[in-house]
């Protein structure tokens, strides 16, 4: 008998911690992990609402989010490896060639 909004607030807290981690950390891999954290927070929200409204599509959506997160993690880490090979650093502050 857990009120639903407990889950929702938990997910909000997890999400904001993910955002904070994204803002504070400098290691690119850690930033990636914070993205995964944010995705998971959202997944929790979906499942909670799926339970509330008795709809399966909420859980289906979580399924797809997991798939996409997996694909994204794979490709993203490959990119990080490629960048590491050229720049020899994992610090995002030194990868700012896209500035004007």
């Amino acid at each position: 008998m857990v009120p639903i909004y407990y889950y929702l607030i938990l997910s909000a807290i997890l999400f904001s911690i993910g955002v904070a981690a994204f803002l504070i950390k400098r290691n690119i891999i850690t930033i990636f992990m914070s993205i995964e954290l944010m995705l998971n927070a959202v997944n929790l929200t979906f499942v909670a609402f799926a339970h509330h409204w008795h709809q399966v599509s909420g859980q289906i959506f979580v399924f797809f989010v997991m798939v996409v997160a997996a694909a994204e993690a794979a490709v993203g880490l490959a990119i990080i490896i490629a960048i590491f090979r050229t720049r020899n650093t994992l610090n995002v502050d030194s990868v700012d060639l896209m500035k004007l």
Partner: protein
Amino acid sequence: MHLVLFFIFGGLCVAGAVNLLFQRHPINSALSLIVVMSSLAVLYLLLGAEFLAAAQVIVYSGAIMVLFTFVIMLLNAGREQRTHGSKAAYLVGIPGAAALVALLVYIFLSNRGPLGDAVLGNYLVTTSDLSRVLFRDFLLPFEVTSVLILVAILGAVALARRER
């Protein structure tokens, strides 16, 4: 009883997340994240999503986080250096994040009336229920995601290949 479980594993989630924030070595952050993932799997179980709980453990903790760990070890990531990259991130970002969480909490709290309780017996989605919907109503997205995975594999291989 469910409430107790919720608080334990919810607390583990938050603790893991905060730990991810405060650890300086990425491998520690990765391990904390594994804790978060696993706790979330239990929470899914509490909400009646048994397949998702399993998938969470298998895919997220078991595959994705392992991948992260491998990459950290491959690249020999060390402790983080304190570099001063951007003031905007602190000046604008932290208030933004704080505002976000405040807003969300406020919204959820002010709407808690209509939302009821999560009782375990109320709604249990079995794997067969899920697959029934997945392979009938959502067949197209399913196939598309399989293509997506294929593309991701190819992309990862192509990107990470050592140039000869």
